[in-house]
């Protein structure tokens, strides 16, 4: 009993080594965490060079391009902010795309209906509010399924993907719902000193979400649950309640996305968010979050969403066939995950002890 095995003896040389490479480790971690911004900078340089050589025109200094990229990024970013919270907690929300579509249809209907009774600006606000609140309903159901009935998030939200899709098409009558409200159209297409209103609203919203994730107990518990749900439960965190609020939050992000979509196109469409779901997951992953949970930031996701928007818009700008967009985004996702894994192997090996 008093003797120690050779294996245990060997172990004692492992511990002190950890401190030596600490500086290198934190440098690697910082690079890995900021990789989305590096990607973004690299992409912009590439497109700038390409554009100048091929067309003799600037890419990034053209304000119209910047506006277009920002507008492009708005809807995927709104979905991705909610998705960031969910992915950090170790879950995933596949229903966001069609919750956005549902919200767009609701926003259009509610704005039109309210417009008949109250002044147009109030009707616009009522429409947006209705869209966000109704979007919360599938969020509540997602949250209850996952927290109370212990359905895996992938399956629960996949089911809600179908339910929200059907509900959105039924409410829209299988078509798009045009909005008759000049204020709503102005919100979706107007600019303040050449910055589109949609971009301003999204920027404010993203800052609020960043605050919630990084500065509140809710955000802190979200990280803890993603890393070690058992530890979070033992620390007295009400995980069921947290998960419920989490999926409502992410659904409401999609609700705002749907309302802003309806403003931009002055119409609600059930398929509004269909192509954006996977973009939202991609933005979160490119932004540095791990799909295993426990890591990720809102600003990383912003960079991830901008990377996707720059690829999509930039390839069109330099006149490449649009199908290359899918390939480019796919390659960026894979590289991003490879960097994440390499970084974990380099600095996080101790987690396996």
């Amino acid at each position, binding site marked *: *009993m*008093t003797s*120690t095995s050779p294996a*245990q*003896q060997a*172990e*004692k040389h*492992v*511990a002190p080594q*950890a401190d030596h490479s*600490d500086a290198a*480790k*934190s440098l690697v971690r910082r690079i890995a965490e900021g990789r989305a911004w590096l990607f973004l900078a690299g992409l912009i340089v590439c497109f700038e060079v390409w554009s100048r050589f091929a067309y003799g025109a600037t890419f990034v200094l053209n304000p119209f391009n910047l506006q277009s990229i920002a507008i492009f990024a708005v809807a995927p970013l709104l979905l991705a902010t909610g998705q960031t919270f969910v992915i950090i907690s170790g879950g995933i929300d596949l229903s966001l795309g069609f919750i956005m579509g549902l919200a767009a249809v609701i926003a259009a209907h509610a704005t039109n209906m309210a417009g008949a009774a109250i002044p147009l600006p109030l009707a616009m606000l009522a429409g947006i509010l209705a869209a966000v609140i109704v979007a919360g309903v599938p969020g509540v159901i997602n949250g209850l399924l996952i927290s109370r009935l212990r359905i895996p998030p992938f399956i629960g939200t996949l089911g809600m993907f179908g339910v929200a899709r059907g509900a959105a098409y039924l409410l829209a009558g299988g078509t798009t719902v045009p909005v008759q409200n000049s204020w709503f159209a102005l919100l979706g297409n107007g600019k303040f000193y050449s910055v589109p209103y949609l971009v301003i609203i999204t920027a404010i919203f993203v800052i609020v979400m960043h*605050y919630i994730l990084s*500065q*509140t*107990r809710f955000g*802190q*518990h979200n*990280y*803890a649950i*993603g*890393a*070690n749900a*058992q*530890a*979070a439960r*033992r*620390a*007295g*965190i009400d995980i069921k309640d947290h998960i419920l609020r989490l999926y409502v939050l992410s659904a409401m992000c999609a609700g705002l996305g749907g309302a802003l979509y309806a403003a931009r196109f002055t119409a609600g469409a059930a398929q509004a968010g269909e192509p954006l779901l996977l973009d939202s997951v991609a933005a979160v992953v490119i932004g540095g979050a791990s799909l295993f949970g*426990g*890591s990720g930031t809102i600003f990383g996701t912003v960079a991830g969403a901008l990377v996707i928007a720059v690829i999509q818009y930039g390839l069109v700008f330099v006149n490449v066939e649009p199908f290359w967009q899918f390939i480019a985004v796919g390659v960026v996702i894979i590289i991003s995950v490879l960097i994440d894994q390499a970084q974990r192997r380099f*600095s*996080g090996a*101790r*987690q396996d*002890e």
Partner: protein
Amino acid sequence: MNSSVQTAPLLEVRNLSKHFGAVRALNDFSMVVRPGEVVALAGDNGAGKTTLIKAISGVYQPTGGEILLRGQPVSFTTPQEAREKGIETIYQDLALADNLSIGANIFLGREPMRKAFGFLPVLDRKAMAAAAKETMSRLDFHVSRLEAPVSNFSGGQRQAVAIGRAVYWDAQILIMDEPTAALGVPEQRKVISLIHQLKAQGRGVIFISHNLHDIFAVSDRIVVLRRGVQAGERKISETNHDEVVKLMVGG
């Protein structure tokens, strides 16, 4: 040791039983923990050690018997209630969130807030870091990287964080389930010296281990469980490894 016999018990377990249907996981078990005393709990796998600590820490409701804290009968329906009364369990598999700092782990679930710009509530990371530093130095554990996630630390350091959390929240009884199991030898020694610190601070420790070497290094008394009943209780100064092993296997 002799002086501590006279002090009033911090924790007393009287005739505690926990039955799962026909299975008597714990039967008519009694023990006492006094302030500044380390009581080792030994026994083979399935002897009822885990059932006992879960009954004490509020995870299980006992089938019979009673638990007294400073002479007052208590009953807990959740581990939170036990924790609020000062009974903290430190689990073998380290209940830490690896991606958070030491301070964030200490305050997990009860984070301090401050007002930024006079109105906006934000997490008070400075207070958390300061408390982390102060608590860890009380355990004679000096860490410089207070912002680093605990995954950067060694197993023994993380064990110290878990103990630090209990100390910060002023736990009077610490139940430690195999705290040295997953550690290398130097780290085991560090945890043993931590337990000595807790003892010196007048806390009661229930120490569960398979390692008799550790038990003899740190405990005042040893209580042996066998098939859910108390097989014997000895002062460490008056017993030896062979006798304890015999009690465990029922020789």
